[in-house]
């Protein structure tokens, strides 16, 4: 049944037209916060019958909740690893990649320590924090550092990218690897430095309709919006790459 669901609701149908007012619950990775808030407003604007509620959290938390029966209609993960098992269990419909993200070196505004390359991160006296390898940004960071041949022992492996941003913005750490979208979202608090080879390491974001969704058509409408040129433009404005 799940595979059919995505097919029956089509973009060329008048989206949500004729549907009763319904609340759509979107579970999205925390890094999507700004972009999805905008997309939700966009959809509600397009179709006043929809009330879109987006819940942001770590992808693994959201995946665990969906597996436990959370009332989600759409799941947008920051990595395939958390989407895959749900698909295997047929808890979500087919997943589509809708965005990509690359890493930046985050430093304090003005870059007081003059950090320009990944190698600068291992300079003595520079306190670097990374995401833990278990979370998407950490996996990407590890891969980027490995490709650059930099062996880095971070002061801390944070549980999510927000913690990395907080540490650098608060001055606890001098530098760290974060998503380009985080740099775009916090212009006053951190400054981004694009390391060499950053574009070679791209994190991919899959999106899918939840199999149990009570509002499958509306859910599909949201997915479609994300994948539409308008949606992609919003994502790009927040620093995301095309899938």
């Amino acid at each position, binding site marked *: 049944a799940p595979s059919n669901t995505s097919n029956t609701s089509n973009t060329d149908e008048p989206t949500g037209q004729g549907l009763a007012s319904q609340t759509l619950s979107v579970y999205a990775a*925390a890094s999507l*916060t700004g972009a999805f808030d905008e997309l939700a407003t966009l959809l509600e604007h397009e179709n006043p019958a929809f009330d879109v509620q987006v819940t*942001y*959290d770590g992808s693994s938390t959201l995946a665990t909740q969906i597996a*436990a*029966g959370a009332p989600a209609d759409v799941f947008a993960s920051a990595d395939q690893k958390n989407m895959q098992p749900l698909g295997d269990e047929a808890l979500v419909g087919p997943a589509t990649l809708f965005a990509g993200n690359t890493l930046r070196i985050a430093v304090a505004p003005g870059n007081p320590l003059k950090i320009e390359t990944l190698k600068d991160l291992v300079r003595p006296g520079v306190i670097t924090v990374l995401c833990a390898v278990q979370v998407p940004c950490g996996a990407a960071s590890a891969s980027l550092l490995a490709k650059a041949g930099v062996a880095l022992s971070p002061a801390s492996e944070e549980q999510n990218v927000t913690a990395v*941003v907080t540490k650098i913005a608060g001055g606890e750490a001098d530098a760290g690897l974060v998503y380009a*979208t985080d740099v775009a979202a*916090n212009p*006053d608090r951190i400054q981004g430095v694009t390391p060499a080879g950053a574009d070679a390491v791209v994190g991919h974001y899959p999106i899918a309709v939840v199999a149990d969704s009570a509002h499958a058509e509306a859910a599909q409408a949201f997915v479609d919006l994300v994948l539409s040129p308008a949606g992609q433009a919003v994502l790009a404005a927040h620093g995301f790459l095309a899938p």
Partner: protein
Amino acid sequence: MIPRLLYLPASIGLALLVLPLAGLLLKVDWPALPALLLSPEALQPLGLSLVTASVSTLLCLLLGVPLAVVIARSQPRAAGLLRALVTVPLVLPPLVGGIALLSLLGRGGVLGNTLELAGLRIPFTTAAVVIAQTFVALPFLVIAVEGALRTAGIRYERVAATLGAGRGTVFALITLPLVGPGLLAGTVLSFARALGEFGATALFAGNHVGVTRTMPLAIYTAFNGSGVTTDQAVALSLLLIAVAVIILVLVGTRRASVLS
């Protein structure tokens, strides 16, 4: 009667607890504060938090006081075991509490499946918030009341029995009033813990505006919201702290007057 030597460590202890909160105050964006605190984003979670924490505290009292009595009046060996069991949820990192609750009451969970058949779904509802809060707050109530019961002893209960009073009467008219201070302390502790509960709630109840987004979850959301500075999170925390202090001081003063 206080040994003078104790004032130094006592001050350090108090400073350790109070100074970080003072530190928070420095991070507050004061001009923006009033508008933020009066926004629905602040008031709705606050309302939900107060309601759920109150209900949880009530549940803690209803379930915890009897449990405390049973433990306090058990043989030492049984009491030791029960007390350990009751204390374990304290050790659980909040997340694990959420996993545990989901594995019991979630889809696929032992009890969850049964409830599902009965048309009842608990996770991701306000009920889930209350259960999560009760789960984490109950141990405090039990431990505090049990300690008070044990210290109060059974001398007065025995006297009441020799006067002919049945167990229920003794419990209501003698036991409960005698452990009043301990009961109040336990209630305060469990209310505070329920009010601040985040981890188990986040996983087990989710984070739905108006349904399960309590104040701690609102703070978390504000904190994680990209583009938003920690200002909002700090402001919300301040609100939570302020409300808590008011309630605690009110209760504390009442308690003092009861004792004096």
